[in-house]
């Protein structure tokens, strides 16, 4: 056991940093650094640069075209990307459907879909939750009926992130209405351009548009778009959720968030002195930093375990719980640091990227919207109540 990086790992870290500095478009870096709203093209330019290098799918094994990073390399890569203000990699292709396809898909499917995910030429989105099926995902009702060489899909999906930018959607659909909830579900890949698909925006509490409802009205999907066996999609679903929950911990982003919070607390004044000199407030930041460290080392333990074989197990649920709570705490303390200047609401600056002057310091207008928006982290990817249920059942045997 050794915490220090080997000379090879150190060399790798230098290579990653040099690559990010040379290939991350300056305007995209600037947007991430200043908390500006990113558009599809911003993500695509960065992801395609990573794709060319072979690092976009950095969690994939070599045999599926990934770089086959060790846990240490993964850790280094994620942290340096965050430190250098790279946008988060959109997970729907790279961390969700990609691994499902290379684990459960046919050779034809691997050949058809994986290259475009590795190179980021196709934008994927997720069709899991439904208006009536949130935490109870297996109760989903969007149905797919077989009709010759096609399925006919009818129903709706919700909390579909960035679907308005997507080329393809992966969906859980009900193919057998008579069996038990988990047993009649299938995993389907659907081209978003197929007639009968409508995407309707959902406006969030912060005024932004990032999620949608997606409606399917007699949408014809070729049977070869089924991944795995019919009625066995729940296996893919669970496999994908476990991967999703690992990413949700967002440790590098939280480390960056704590540093940004410290910068704000240094810039803000209280009775003429930097706010960071307020003992009570400094202790709140210290407490948060300790929480992030505990999370980081838990994630490192999970990664190390995975390196010695095996998929992430139920312990991943704990990472999601703490990771999401920490993300929320960062936004809460940031708002506290900003004080009354968190009140002005500047939608132009937030969403349209206008050159409007901020009110007060440049970071102030972001604080409250981020706090409101980040409430979603303890809800999505299986609410924290659900995660605790999983741990109590699967880990503790209660």
């Amino acid at each position, binding site marked *: 056991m050794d915490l220090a990086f080997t000379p090879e790992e150190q060399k790798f870290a230098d290579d990653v940093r040099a690559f990010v500095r040379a290939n991350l478009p300056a305007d995209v870096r600037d947007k991430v650094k200043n908390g500006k709203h990113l558009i599809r093209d911003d993500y695509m330019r960065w992801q395609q640069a990573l794709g060319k290098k072979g690092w976009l799918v950095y969690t994939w094994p070599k045999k599926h075209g990934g770089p086959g990073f060790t846990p240490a390399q993964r850790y280094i890569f994620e942290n340096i990307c965050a430190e250098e203000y790279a946008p988060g990699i959109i997970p729907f292709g790279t961390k969700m459907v990609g691994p499902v396809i290379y684990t459960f898909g046919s050779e034809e499917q691997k050949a058809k879909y994986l290259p475009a995910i590795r190179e980021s030429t196709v934008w994927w989105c997720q069709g899991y939750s439904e208006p009536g099926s*949130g935490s109870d995902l297996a109760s989903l009702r969007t149905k797919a009926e077989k009709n010759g060489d096609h399925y006919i899909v009818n129903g709706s999906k919700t909390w579909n992130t960035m679907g308005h930018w997507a080329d393809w959607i992966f969906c859980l659909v009900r193919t057998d209405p008579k069996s038990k909830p988990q047993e009649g579900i299938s995993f389907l890949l659907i081209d978003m351009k197929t007639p009968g698909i409508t995407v309707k925006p*959902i406006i969030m509490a912060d005024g932004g548009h990032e999620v949608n409802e997606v409606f399917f009205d007699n949408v014809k999907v070729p049977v070869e778009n089924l991944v795995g066996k019919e009625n066995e999609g729940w296996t893919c679903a669970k496999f994908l959720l476990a991967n999703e929950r690992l990413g949700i911990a967002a440790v590098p982003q939280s480390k960056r968030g704590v540093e940004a919070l410290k910068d704000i607390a240094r810039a803000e004044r*209280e009775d003429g002195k930097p706010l960071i000199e307020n003992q009570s407030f400094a202790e709140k930041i210290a407490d948060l930093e300790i929480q992030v460290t505990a999370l980081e080392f838990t994630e490192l333990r999970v990664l190390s375990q995975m390196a010695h074989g095996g998929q992430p197990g139920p312990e991943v649920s704990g990472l999601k719980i703490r990771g999401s709570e920490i993300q929320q705490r960062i936004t809460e303390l940031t*708002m506290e640091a900003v004080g009354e200047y968190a*009140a002005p609401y500047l939608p132009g600056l937030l969403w349209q990227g206008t050159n409007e002057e901020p*009110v007060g310091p440049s970071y102030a207008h972001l604080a409250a919207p981020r706090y409101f928006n980040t*409430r979603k982290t303890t809800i999505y990817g299986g609410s924290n109540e659900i995660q605790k249920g999983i741990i109590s059942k699967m880990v503790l045997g209660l």
Partner: protein
Amino acid sequence: MDLSLSDEQKQLKDAAERFVRDKYTFENRRKIAATERGWLPENWAQFAELGWLGMSFSEEDGGYGGGPIETMIVMEEFGKGLVLEPFLPTVVLGGGMIASAGSKAQKEALLAPMIEGKKQFALAWLERQSRYNLADVSLKATKEGAGWSLSGHKGVVYNAPSADHIIVLARTAGSAREPKGLTLFIVDAKAKGISRRDYPTQDALRASELTFDKVSVGADAVLGKVDEAFPVVEGAVDRAIVALCAEATGCMDAINAATLEYIKTRKQFGVPIGKFQVLQHRMVDCFTNAQEARSMTLMASLKIDDKDPTVRAKAASGAKVQIGKSGKFCGQSAVQMHGGMGVTDELSVSHYFKRLTMIDLMFGNQQHHLTRYSNLAMAA
């Protein structure tokens, strides 16, 4: 001792409830928030007609002889409807300061028309560096003939876009953050030299950044005594804090009611989610938090006119700490129990959550008032 409402106070509560029910359905509120002004003149006229603009002022000031309990009753109902009319800046802060420190002439010229619904106010106290220190003021007022000249900046001035008069806290003597040497000026909002940048706030109110560039005012613009404004402002802000606590109590009642209804009707795993113990306990904690908030608001409303300034300050800070804590708990829990729907703009839950969040930030958050309370309580 008797903590029950009088018949008149019950009638006031009924009238306020009726107003919110009739005029502040959630969809109606959305429409009002989207108007240019952000509030409705017809509602303001109705407040005047119902006597709400004058209820907390003495009869000799042209009011109806009520006090903080009347303000509490109305603010609590306003909280339930997320009412947008600028009652707090105009009546509680502006009217309150004029009543406590104004001359006879100022009361006649400003307070009387305010009670009739014809004048609105805004208090400009905050500056970029002030945080929650009311004495951290650098906007300067210098003698200019018989009058004064004001130069400097004020931030997040609620209701400045609609106010007829801005009540400005300025430094006339002393060094930075010194409580002595502060003076209040009542300035015509259209006075030459004032420039304004207006914006909506997170919770759909209206506020402005104000720049004063050699704004000339007469000697009669001074509210109270020169260099002696600090206790006036502190007292007015403490009364505003108690009014905000009442509003927050109303918000908590409404958000808890919406959440309770939701967990009784939303089904997952074949049962209403309210059948799950983890949500039941959280809902109980929300209920308890709202009870504590209501109790502290009542305590503070009863003590805010106490003759001992320490009692008043402790009451306001104690209640604000409770409201910050309870408001955050109820708001965050409501969003969580609503799941994804809780973070959408579509449901009222996120709007109550935003208002509760902003109430904590106004005039000192939970941490600030815990420190203030602690200093007051340990000194005694």
